[in-house]
């Protein structure tokens, strides 16, 4: 290695750019972080809510899953419990149905009416839905049960916001 002599001018140049660079970085980094942060945040689960149900445990028989989420009402935030009926349909796809009756908003139950086995039953006005959530004509509800979009993450089921479907 040849000895390279550094002149005073060069030395001062190097140190000043070095220190100046650090200072500029110190100022700019937080700004960049602030600008980028919202984008990073939007990337994780989005509006999907984690449920305690493992995807591997989902069977063809609908099972009730409770999950909690925070709901913001004009004045206060509250911890709400949501429920979904989850099962695999014939095609092997995961279906998560909202338990809220499309008639007047009671909570439906699976397979509780003895006269109509393997159906969703609303105890309020005896509304009936097929397993896939289609409303049975002749009973009060006029639309199928809402469906939650589903997603799998780390083996657990995540559900989104329930979406309405068209009537039968």
């Amino acid at each position, binding site marked *: 290695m040849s000895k390279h002599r550094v002149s005073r001018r060069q030395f001062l140049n190097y140190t000043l750019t070095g220190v100046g660079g650090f200072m500029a970085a110190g100022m700019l980094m937080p700004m960049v972080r602030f600008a980028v942060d919202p984008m990073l945040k939007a990337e994780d689960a989005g509006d999907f809510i984690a449920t305690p149900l493992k995807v591997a445990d989902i069977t063809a028989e609908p099972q009730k899953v409770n999950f909690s989420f925070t709901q913001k009402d004009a004045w206060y935030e509250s*911890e709400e*419990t949501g429920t979904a009926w989850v099962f695999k349909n014939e095609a092997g796809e995961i279906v998560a149905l909202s338990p809220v*009756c499309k*008639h*007047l*908003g*009671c*909570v439906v139950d699976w397979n509780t009416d003895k006269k109509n086995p393997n159906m969703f039953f*609303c*105890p*309020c*006005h005896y509304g009936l839905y097929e397993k896939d959530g289609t409303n049975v004509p002749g009973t*009060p509800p006029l639309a199928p049960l809402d469906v939650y979009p589903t997603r799998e993450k780390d083996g657990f089921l995540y559900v989104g916001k329930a979406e309405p479907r068209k009537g039968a």
Partner: protein
Amino acid sequence: MKWMAADVEMYQKAAEYVDTAVIPLMPVSFGDDMKQHATMAEFAGILTTQLEKQFRGRIFLMPGFVYFKGHEGSLEGLRNWENTLLDKQFKHVFYVTSDISWRQHEKGLGGSLLWLPSLSLDNLPDQQKVSLVDDQVKQLLSLFTEKWQEG
């Protein structure tokens, strides 16, 4: 449905389907048993709120019937509520309370009195609170469905 503007709007569209009124009876006092009465009132409120969530399409949850403990007028007041409600579309009236003194007036009331011992939920972790109340609500639900099946 609850006593709220949005729910009332829904009620007005579907009044013929809503035939059951639920009234939580909530005692108030400022004596030694103040806390006990607060627990009772709170419990009746929580129970009926959960109940309403399950059956919101058929029951109308009235704002609580609040009365000062030891006032003889409260039974009269409740009877007035009852008469007004039964005059309107309601077929069934349910009272939910933890105050045992209503038991002796049960015969004087046309509606069904559901008495449950109040549980102090003060010092429990959230999860336990929820499952405790859920169990109680489940038992109440079957009382409602039975009554409805009777017609």
